[in-house]
């Protein structure tokens, strides 16, 4: 009950600040703008994918960090009350994650609805992109909470969060490229499949790309990927991995939060 109360309060707080409106407007404008400029819906979805894969992790990381440090006084005040620490922590977390998810979904859906384009053929891909977006929001908010709790120093916390984003969005792929190049004499299909699961951004990208029929370009590797991600088990495994990706940083962040001397 208290959890809901905290979430409600946080929601109210977040909604009152203007950035969340900008965030919603951003998605609305991106989608609506792209639909107006091109009639090719698959292109719009491809661009939306790029936005989801780069912008969502970045924004979630930055906002999560700022949010946590800004709410420090509030946290200290709440801790003086007879309330369970886990409740406070989860209240804070969902108080940010829920509005972020809502503004993403509302922005995109509004853009599509206003343009009233028929997305029926692309409904599957759109759903997958939205799901990936939601997962990435949840994951990167959790990561930013973890780094913020860990680091007393604002700047350090911020740096750590940005570094993790940079690592997962960019450096990881660089390492993957290096590995695939270095080991190209070996069969790498299963290897690259497993490695791509180690990064939520890569996993989301591969999941979406395969729906765009890109597998045909990848020859044998593509066939292996298609076979894995194409069936229910593969999808189930991928989403389980994404869930673990969301749960793990949240778990560590909570552990730290319980012990932390504010």
């Amino acid at each position, binding site marked *: 009950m208290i959890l809901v109360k905290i979430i409600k309060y946080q929601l109210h707080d977040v909604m009152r600040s203007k950035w969340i409106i900008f965030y919603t407007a951003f998605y609305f404008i991106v989608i609506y703008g792209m639909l107006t400029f091109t009639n090719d819906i698959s292109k719009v979805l491809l661009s939306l994918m790029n936005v989801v894969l780069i912008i969502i992790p970045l924004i979630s990381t930055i906002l999560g960090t700022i949010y946590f440090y800004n709410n420090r006084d509030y946290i200290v005040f709440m801790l003086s009350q007879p309330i369970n620490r886990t409740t406070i922590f989860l209240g804070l977390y969902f108080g940010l994650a829920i509005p972020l998810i809502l503004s993403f979904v509302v922005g995109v859906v509004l853009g599509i609805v206003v343009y009233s384009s028929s997305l029926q053929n692309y409904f599957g891909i759109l759903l997958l992109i939205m799901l990936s977006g939601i997962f990435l929001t949840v994951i990167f908010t959790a990561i930013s909470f973890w780094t913020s709790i860990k680091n007393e120093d604002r700047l350090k916390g911020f740096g750590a969060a940005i570094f993790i984003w940079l690592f997962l969005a960019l450096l990881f792929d660089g390492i993957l490229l290096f590995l695939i190049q270095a080991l190209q004499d070996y069969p790498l299909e299963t290897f690259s499949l497993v490695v791509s699961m180690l990064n939520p951004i890569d996993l989301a990208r591969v999941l979406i790309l395969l729906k765009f029929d*890109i597998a045909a370009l990848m020859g044998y590797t593509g066939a292996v990927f298609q076979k894995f991600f194409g069936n229910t088990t593969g999808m189930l495994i991928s989403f389980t991995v994404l869930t673990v990706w969301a749960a793990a940083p949240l778990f560590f962040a909570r552990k730290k939060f319980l012990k932390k001397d504010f």
Partner: protein
Amino acid sequence: MFALKILSFYRFALFLFLAISFSIPGFLFPKQITISPSGKIKSIKRAIEIAADNDTLLIMPGLYKEGNIRINKKLVIMGRNYPVIDGENNGEIFTVTSDSVIIKGLKIINSGLSFVEDNAGIKLEEVKNCSIINNILLNNFFAVYVAKSADCFVENNKIEAHGTRETTSGNGIHLWYCRNITIANNKISGHRDGIYFEFVESSKIYDNYSKDNIRYGLHFMFSDSCVYSNNTFENNGAGVAVMYTHNIKMLNNLFLHNWGSASYGILLKEIFDSQISNNRFLKNSSGIYLEGSNRVDVSHNDFIENGWALRLMANSMDNKFTDNNFIGNSFDVTTNSVQNFNFFDHNYWSEYNGYDLNKDRIGDVPYRPVKLFSLLVERNQPLLILHRSLFASVLDLTEKVFPILTPESLIDNHPSMKRIK
């Protein structure tokens, strides 16, 4: 007196002529033999036996099951309302061994599958001047098979099969050692190869529609000096493959949605001195794949939304790519070499983001169509797992600023600012 004599001579001549023509009509006036299930002559084989050269066999509607029918006389075989000639999945149906045979308006079904014989719906064997027009060929192993023949026409046929495997399925139109054949306006689907040529010369292939074939929509080898125009090749298992041939022209064709891991708009292997112009390549995994092909002139084509527009292997030289449109392809050009012996000029690239200060509609900055990432992918395909990742874009951007690995001379010095019409 003299005039009268001449007149009577002519009269006599005319009389003689008429007398001869009426007494032996078969030689001078062709006759028509009607075959129908309820008529006097019920069998096509019987009709061929009693027919003489130049006769017409008119086949009335009905179902005819006569096994292999051999046409060894110069006949016109015409069907009314598509009589059905059923091969009952056993052996060949029509075997033509005489010149100048015309087969028209028949529905020929079920020639037998065989791993030894190339059983066809209609086979032309060492003949000239034959025509196969307006027929429907359904569920045949091979549909039309032309061997060692010349000056023949295969026109307006509808050819359909429902093969599932390459080994148990034959080709739609199969030519072997032929000269000067015209293949026009046929619709071919569901065979192994839609149109297959081997050792064919100087033939014309136009207005055909080859769709949903298991392997290639069009497949030829050692077939010099042929012209392919206005054909559509759609959704074939492996697209179109052409090999070991000189002097071909491919004009105004549409290559549509040949999509799959081993599928190509056109695969060119050892093609020399040829022209590929005004074609449209739409949504193929590879638009054109060139291997060991030299002096091919590729101009005025549209490459739209293909996986790769061009895959240029290092063993291809002196090819010219001019005035083409490259729009929305995942990769415009890839090559597996750091050197380049081909020529690119005056193309439109949708990825180009240079400027045009003097407004001559030609970009002032040269365009390099080979991206670093695509070069890496060409060498090591599993890397495609990084397709559309931030890292791949950063890689391409870096290479753009410091070109080291991409072929220095593979460059379009005059990229068009506007789409070329």
